[in-house]
C-alpha cells in the first residue's frame, strides 16, 4: 500500500515522514530541501500488520508545475496512483495551503489532511475549527505537530483505513480547455475564492499576519545588506571556531590519544614479525585510518551546528541578504543554499542546485559550489592548520572565506565567458517563521553523519591506504624498498611525473602528489595518504599542543614551509572534488561541454591559487621567486589563452543564436 505525502514546501512533510518511517531524511527550515521523492516503509507502530510504504514528495504549491520539484509531485500523484494521500497543511498558512488541497481532492484518491504546526498556532492564538473544515472539504482533518509526534497515529490509521475508497471533491474545476490561459486563470481564481470562503469560516486569528512583529524587526535587520552579511560572517566564524579550534580539537585530542596508544600496541605486538606486516597493519591501516578518524570530532561538531542553523530558519534570511551580492556576479540568492549545504558535503549541494530556475545560473552554481570546503576537507584543513600554523583559528576561516571569494570570481569568469544575457531573474524566497532548533534532531543528524564518516573511513579510505602502503613499500619487482631508496617504490614512480607539474607550486614531491591524487577518491585520503607516506599519525598532538615537537617534525618530514604548506592546502581544497561529487556534477550539467569546463575551471583554479601563493609568498618571505616560476608562468598563460579562446567561441555561438532569435522576433512583429 502506498501513501503519498504531499503539501506545500516547508510544511513539515519531511519531518512527519521521518517520524513515521524512522528515517532521517534531510530537513531544513526553508523550501527546496527535498529534491526528489523518497520511499520507505512505515514503522510498525503506525502501520500495524500491513506493509505500508510512505512516499515523501518535494513541496508543491499546486498541481501545475513551476519548478522541477512540483513537477515530481504532480506527476507522481497523477501517474503512480497511490492508495491514499496525506496532505500536510501548514496550519499557520491555511489560506495558501488549501489551494493545493482542493486540487488533490479532485483526483479521486482518498485524502487525509494533517493540519500541521498547530503548536505554533496555539502560541499565536490562531484557532482553526477542524471539524468544520473537515465538513467543508469532505475529508478527515487531523491536528498534528510532527515535531512532537502528536496526532500522527490517528491520522495514519485513518489514511490506511480509507485506502481504496473514492474521494469526492468539494470543489470541481469546470471543464475548460487547459491550454487557454485566460480560462485557467479564471478557474484558478474561482478556486481561490472557494478557499478564501472556507478559511474565513473556520479560522480565527488573534494576531493578524500583516502586523509587524518582533520577528519582523529581526528579519529586517538580518536582511539589511551590510548588517546581515556581517552577522552571517560572524555566525559562520563562530561555527568554524567552535568546531575546528575549540570544541572539535578538544575532543579530538582525547580520541587521537587512544588511537596512538592502540597503534603503538599493535606495532609492539608485531615487533618480532616481518617489517612489512607492521608497516601494513600498524602504519597503513591503523595509522592511516586512525589519522582520518582522529578528525571525526571536528566534523561532528560542525555538522551539529549547521543542523541547528538550518533548522531554526536562519538560512532563508541568509539567502535573502546575499542575493544582491550574488546577483552582481551573475548568480542569485538561490545559489546561497547549495553553498551552505556544501559546507557539509558537496554532493547534496550540487543536487540542491536544481531549485535554481535559470539554466546558466544553475550550472554555474553547481560547478562553483565545491569551492566551499566540504566536511571531507576538514581533516585536511585541520591537519595543515595544526602542523604549520599552530592550530590557529584563522586558517579554517580563511579557507571558507577564500572559497567564497573564488565562487564570486568564478561566477564572474563564467559570466564573461558565456556572455551576460539580459534575462529577468526574479528572486523570491519564503521566510519561514523562526523556530527554536531541535537539539534532538541536530544530535540525530550529527550521529548519522558520524556513522557515515566512520563507514567511509573503514571502507574506502582503509582500502586506499592499504593500496598506498603496499605501493610505497614495494618496487616494481615486488622487492621491499630499502630505507632511503623510497623513490624506487611503485607509488613514487607513478606519482613522480605528476610531481614535476607541481614544482612551480612549491610541492613537487612525489609523496605530496600522490596524496593529492588519492584525494580524488575521497578528500580525507589526502590526510590518510600523508600519514602512510610519511609514517606520521600524531597530527593532533595530545601533550604537545604547543606544536613544538609534534608539528615541527611533521613540517620537516614533509619538507614544506609555511608558504608551500598553504599553497598545498589550497591546492587540495580548490581543485576538482572527489569522483563522487564529479559524478553528481555530471548528472546536473547534462552536457559534456559544461562538465569538462567545470573540471577544467576547478583544476586551473587550484593550480593558479597554489602557484600565486607559492611564488609571491616565497617572494615576500625570501625575496625571490620559488623554483619553477617561469614554467608555471607559461602554464598560467596557456590557461588564460584557453579561457579567452573558449569565451570567444561560446560568445560567437550565442551571437548566432541571438541573431536568429532577433530575426524571428522581427518576422513575428512584421506579421
Amino acid at each position, binding site marked *: 500500500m502506498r501513501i503519498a505525502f504531499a503539501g506545500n514546501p516547508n510544511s513539515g512533510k519531511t519531518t512527519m515522514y521521518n517520524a513515521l518511517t524512522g528515517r532521517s531524511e534531510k530537513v531544513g527550515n526553508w523550501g527546496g530541501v527535498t529534491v526528489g521523492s523518497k520511499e520507505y516503509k512505515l514503522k510498525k507502530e503506525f502501520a500495524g500488520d500491513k506493509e505500508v510504504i510512505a512516499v515523501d514528495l518535494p513541496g508543491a504549491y499546486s498541481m501545475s508545475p513551476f519548478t522541477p520539484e512540483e513537477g515530481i509531485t504532480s506527476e507522481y500523484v497523477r501517474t503512480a496512483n497511490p492508495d491514499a494521500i496525506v496532505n500536510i497543511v501548514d496550519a499557520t*498558512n491555511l489560506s495558501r495551503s488549501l489551494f493545493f488541497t482542493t486540487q488533490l481532492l479532485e483526483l479521486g484518491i482518498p485524502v487525509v489532511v494533517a493540519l500541521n504546526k498547530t503548536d505554533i498556532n496555539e502560541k499565536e492564538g490562531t484557532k482553526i475549527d477542524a471539524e468544520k473544515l473537515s465538513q467543508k472539504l469532505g475529508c478527515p482533518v487531523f491536528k498534528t505537530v510532527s515535531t512532537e509526534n502528536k496526532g500522527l497515529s490517528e491520522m495514519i490509521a485513518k489514511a490506511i483505513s480509507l485506502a481504496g475508497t473514492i474521494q469526492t471533491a468539494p470543489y470541481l474545476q469546470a471543464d475548460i480547455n487547459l491550454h487557454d490561459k485566460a480560462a485557467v486563470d479564471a478557474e484558478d481564481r474561482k478556486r481561490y475564492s472557494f478557499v478564501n470562503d472556507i478559511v474565513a469560516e473556520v479560522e480565527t486569528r488573534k494576531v493578524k499576519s500583516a502586523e509587524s512583529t518582533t520577528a*519582523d524587526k529581526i*528579519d529586517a535587520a538580518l536582511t539589511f*545588506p551590510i548588517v546581515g552579511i556581517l552577522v552571517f560572517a560572524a555566525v559562520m566564524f563562530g561555527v568554524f571556531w567552535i568546531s575546528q579550534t575549540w570544541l572539535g580539537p578538544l575532543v579530538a585530542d582525547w580520541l587521537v590519544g587512544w588511537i596512538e596508544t592502540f597503534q603503538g600496541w599493535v606495532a609492539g605486538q608485531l615487533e618480532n614479525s616481518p617489517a612489512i606486516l607492521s608497516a601494513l597493519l600498524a602504519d597503513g591501516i591503523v595509522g592511516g585510518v586512525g589519522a582520518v578518524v582522529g578528525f571525526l570530532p571536528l566534523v561532528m561538531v560542525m555538522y551539529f551546528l549547521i543542523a541547528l542553523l538550518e533548522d531554526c530558519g536562519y538560512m532563508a534570511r541568509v539567502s*535573502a541578504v546575499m542575493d*544582491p551580492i550574488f546577483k552582481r556576479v551573475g548568480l542569485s540568492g538561490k545559489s546561497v543554499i547549495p553553498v551552505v549545504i556544501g559546507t557539509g558535503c558537496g554532493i547534496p549541494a550540487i543536487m540542491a542546485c536544481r531549485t535554481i530556475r535559470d539554466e546558466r545560473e544553475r550550472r554555474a552554481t553547481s560547478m562553483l559550489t565545491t569551492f566551499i570546503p566540504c566536511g571531507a576537507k576538514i581533516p585536511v584543513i585541520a591537519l595543515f592548520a595544526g602542523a604549520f600554523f599552530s592550530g590557529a583559528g584563522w586558517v579554517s576561516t580563511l579557507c571558507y572565506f577564500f572559497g567564497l571569494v573564488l565562487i564570486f570570481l568564478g561566477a564572474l569568469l563564467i559570466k564573461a565567458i558565456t556572455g551576460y544575457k539580459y534575462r529577468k531573474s526574479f528572486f*523570491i524566497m519564503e521566510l519561514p517563521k523562526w523556530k527554536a532548533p531541535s537539539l534532538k534532531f541536530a544530535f540525530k543528524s550529527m550521529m548519522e553523519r558520524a556513522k557515515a564518516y566512520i563507514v567511509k573511513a573503514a571502507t574506502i579510505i582503509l582500502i586506499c591506504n592499504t593500496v598506498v602502503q603496499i605501493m610505497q613499500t614495494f618496487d616494481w619487482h615486488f622487492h621491499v624498498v630499502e630505507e632511503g631508496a623510497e623513490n624506487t617504490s611503485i607509488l613514487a614512480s607513478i606519482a613522480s611525473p605528476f610531481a614535476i607539474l607541481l614544482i612551480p607550486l612549491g610541492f613537487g614531491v612525489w609523496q605530496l602528489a600522490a596524496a593529492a591524487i588519492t584525494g580524488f577518491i575521497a578528500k580525507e585520503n589526502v590526510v590518510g595518504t600523508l600519514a602512510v607516506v610519511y609514517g606520521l599519525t600524531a597530527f593532533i598532538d595530545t601533550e604537545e599542543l604547543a606544536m613544538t615537537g609534534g608539528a615541527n617534525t611533521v613540517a620537516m618530514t614533509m619538507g614544506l614551509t609555511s608558504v608551500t604548506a598553504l599553497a598545498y592546502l589550497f591546492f587540495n581544497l580548490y581543485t576538482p572534488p572527489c569522483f563522487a561529487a564529479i559524478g553528481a556534477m555530471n548528472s546536473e550539467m547534462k552536457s559534456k561541454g559544461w562538465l569538462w569546463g567545470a573540471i577544467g575551471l576547478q583544476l586551473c583554479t587550484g593550480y593558479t591559487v597554489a602557484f600565486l601563493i607559492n611564488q609571491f609568498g616565497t617572494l615576500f618571505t625570501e625575496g625571490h621567486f620559488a623554483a619553477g616560476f617561469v614554467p608555471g608562468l607559461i602554464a598560467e598563460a596557456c590557461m588564460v589563452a584557453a579561457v579567452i579562446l573558449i569565451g570567444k567561441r561560446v560568445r560567437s555561438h550565442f551571437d548566432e543564436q541571438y541573431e536568429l532569435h532577433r530575426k524571428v522576433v522581427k518576422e513575428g512583429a512584421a506579421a
Partner: protein
Amino acid sequence: MLAQFTLKRRGSAVASEVDTEAVESAGKRTLLSAEPGKTYIVKEINTDDDEMNSFLFRLGCYVGEPITLVSKKKKSCIVVIKDGRYNLDNLLSEAIII
C-alpha cells in the same frame, strides 16, 4: 569585455528607469514605492514570465488580493502574502502594480 558589461548594465538601468517612469506616469504604483506597514491591493502583475505569474498566483499574489509591505531595503523588500512572509528582490517588486 568590460565595455560590454557597462553597456549592458547601463542598458538595463535605463530600461528600468523608463519602465517605472512610464508606469508611474500612467498613474500606477509599483510595490517599489509602497510604504512599510501598509496593506495594498494588487492591481496588476507584469513579470513577462508566465511561470512566474503562476507561481505568484499559487502563493496568493494575484489581482484583487491584499499584499502588505513589512520592510523595504535598497535592493529588496519583505512582504506578507496570505499569511506567509516572502523576500522579494526589486525586479519582482517592480512588476507588481498596486
